[in-house]
């Protein structure tokens, strides 16, 4: 596995090109790179959103992300992988999460990236809180569809 595989939980924004370049460094055997970037929508459940706040559980969150990443490496022949998840306050259009994986062939990379995102949604301790334009706030409820998405990967 690559030295450049990693997980990061950070307040700062990230740059897709920079991160993918790091992920590919030193690998001449990579034939596929698949990345997913999650961004903040300006509307949720029909309501306008002005601020999205991400809370996490320091220590457990990093561990959960690393476990998901390692599980992906066990299931697919990946060369390297990364997960970056932001915390703190964000606005619509901001980037929240980046998942990127590399492999020799595209099938493994597509599936592994999909798997990591589905598992992250239901297993990594993050919580979203929305602020509406009038200043009221609401904790986001977990979606049944996210739980269903996870089940497709059950062995």
């Amino acid at each position, binding site marked *: 596995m690559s030295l450049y595989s990693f997980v990061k939980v950070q307040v700062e924004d990230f740059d897709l090109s920079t991160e993918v370049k790091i992920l590919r460094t030193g690998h001449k055997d990579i034939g596929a790179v698949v990345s997913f970037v999650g961004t903040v929508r300006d509307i949720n459940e029909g309501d306008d959103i002005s601020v999205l706040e991400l*809370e996490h559980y320091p220590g457990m969150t990093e561990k959960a992300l690393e476990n998901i990443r390692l599980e992906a490496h066990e299931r697919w022949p990946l060369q390297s992988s990364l997960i970056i998840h932001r915390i703190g306050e964000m606005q619509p259009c901001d980037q929240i999460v980046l998942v990127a994986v590399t492999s020799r062939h595209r099938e493994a990379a597509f599936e592994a990236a999909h798997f990591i995102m589905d598992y992250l949604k239901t297993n990594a301790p993050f919580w979203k809180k929305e602020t509406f334009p009038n200043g009221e706030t609401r*904790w986001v409820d977990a979606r049944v569809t996210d739980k269903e998405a996870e089940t497709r990967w059950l062995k």
Partner: protein
Amino acid sequence: MLEILYFASFREVLGKAQEELPVENYKTVECVLKDLAGRGEAWQQALKDNANLQIAVNHSVATRQTELNPGDEIAFFPPVTGG
């Protein structure tokens, strides 16, 4: 001692982010929940009676039946919503 942590909506509803409890009083997570429920309706609804309650002990997913040891860190939180 046991270190108890509350996250997200739980922290707001219960008005507490963390506290310490004496380990000798609690054999399992369920014992802690029973005791906390005695603090009032908000505590009972958010934790003991909450079918969606998520539990972690020492940063690993746990259940109400998980046994506790001195120094354990127990976290209570609602279903996660990251990504």
